[in-house]
């Protein structure tokens, strides 16, 4: 049974299904595009100073930048420990340490 599609130009037959070689070619093209993005495009973008610097910090610190759940990011545990220490063991001995500054 043939199926027709109604278009602005009238009834037309649907596009013919791709042949097997074409399908495999499409897959290969997709793989090549991925390879191109990972090994060519992304490293090129990294040459923009601000982006390269930021990504460099992420790599040096070993941060799991893609992780979406807090339990999968090592530094979240460190952050939680820091917060607990600020809450429970904040240094309050005699004198002052001076204000910590961050650049």
């Amino acid at each position, binding site marked *: 049974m043939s199926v027709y599609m109604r278009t602005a130009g009238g009834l037309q037959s649907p596009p013919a299904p791709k042949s097997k070689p074409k*399908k*495999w070619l*499409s*897959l290969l093209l*997709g*793989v090549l595009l*991925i390879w191109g993005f*990972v*090994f060519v495009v*992304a*490293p090129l973008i*990294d040459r923009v100073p*601000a*982006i390269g610097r*930021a*990504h*460099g*910090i*992420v*790599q040096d*610190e*070993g*941060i*799991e*930048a*893609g*992780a*979406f*759940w*807090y*339990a*999968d*990011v090592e*530094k*979240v*545990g*460190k*952050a*939680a*420990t*820091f*917060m*607990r*220490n*600020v*809450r429970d*063991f*904040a*240094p*309050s*001995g*005699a*004198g*002052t*340490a*001076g*204000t*910590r500054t*961050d*650049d």
Partner: protein
Amino acid sequence: MDDKFKNQPTQSDDIVVDKPKSSWSDLWKFEDYWAIWLGILLLVAGMFIFFNNPPAEMNEKITKANATMQAEAERAPFKTIAYVEADEAKGKLKASDGDLAKTLANYLSRPKGWDSNPVPSFYLSEADAAAKSAAEAPKYEAAQEKTIAVRAAAEEAEAAAAAAGFQNTQLNKEADTAIDAWVAAKAAESKAKSGANVKPYNLIPTLIVLCVAFALFFAIGTRFMGRDVAGFLMGFPFVFLVAIIAYMMSNQGTMKAYGIEYVIWAIGLGLLISNTVGTPRWVMPAVQTEYYIKTGLVLLGASILFSKILLIGQAGIFVTWVVTPIVLICTFWFGQKVLKMESKTLNITVSADMSVSGVSAAIATAAACRAKKEELTLAVGISVAFTAVMMILMPAFIKSVGMHHVLGGAWMGGTIDSTGAVVAAGAILSDTAMYVAATIKMIQNVMIGVIAFGVAAYWCTKVECTPGAKLGFKDAMYEIWARFPKFVLGFIGASVVFSIIYSSMGDDVGKVLVDEGVIKGWTSGLQGWFFALAFASIGLATNFRELAKYFKGGKVVILYVCGQSFNLILTLLMAYLMFFVVFPGVTEKLMGG
């Protein structure tokens, strides 16, 4: 057919819909319940493994460390060497360090990092490991020497400050700075030590075992649900292979820095296969998106620990638990009334992922409202794309305007979608920014349970109910129960049970046995694999043209951009009010911490 259920949505491959009638046999025939049973099985196993194997002398070591930290905190106005060492000793206590736990971790291992050659993702020979270690050995030796020298300087500075009775501000500041330098030197030494002690590995055998274990595990429910078990077992290795390649790609050096996670790769690879050569028919019985996602979500529930919302005090609660629901509801309203989005489920999924916590919120919300898999894919894709940009732009902006790092950290934590990107953005600025950002995001993560429950309840009382149907109280309750996504009960239940366990243990023991035990050593790894399988399934079952039609008119992107803009403004305003006007003491403590 009874008029009450005339407009009942019908079963489709895209979403799971419960039948209107409940019976006891649902408990072993329905996917939602199997997600709960399988999730409970794994959680109980985890508790048995980790709670019964605490680190040696755990309580004594914690007590000793806390006593030292308390004494040192009272003695000096900065963190002394003894304070730091006691804190580190406490931090080394992990239930996941036990032998059985390490064996399990081995079997749950994901493909490792690589740059240009993917082989080290799975295999590193003894010779290569030895060569890598030897290359890094001089760096480690240098780091060790530096730590010794810097520690000597820190001891000297601390002694000078102590000799002045900690009354000399300048000496105290110098001691604080010297001790910070020593902590940084120790961190560098630890990193160098890892580089100089590379162990060989081979993940192929463990991945094969994991594939078989997961296949049999999920086959249990498949059998009782009356699905094709043989077909499932035959197709599962293919789906698992896509998940493995997704993890491998996400650990490529550049991709890892960009934050392009395994979820995106799983969808992408699945889409590539399904839209080119086509997903083989024999794989389809194993393409079970909802089954894998719901089981993963029940495990995720165990790490939604309510005591964490108090970590940064009331300031953190306002920035997260007040701002987030306002942004979520306003964005959903905007999508319905202004943009007139056709799909409510797409609207709420995108609104949740933008306002709450990205991919994890999208997964939980999509499952709770039974969104289509294409809608979840879109929400995740948009979130990851904008996250990669915000991770770079926000710290750059904060630096350029000279924003206070506590404010900047809270702002980024409440707005950048994914936790990893939040930590990365914070780290680009400073440690303080990173600690605040990470904590705010973790508190938002904890909201997912409440959001999922709220969305599920709203959907089955307001959205999916039969329009115009006048039901008595009993019938209305019955209909709500029939429509309610039951796995959400397992998700919330796991959260409640583990929150109670964590609170009863106390923060210190809870951290050792739950955070660094059951969660990091067990559920985190398992849920990651289950989500990878789920998103691989989405990709393998999705027609690209079906996905493309949701972009029509660009409404979904407009929704995200408008919602995120509102989120940025409101979060910044609330963070400023809370950290600088209402609770300035918190900011002072954080800067002195």
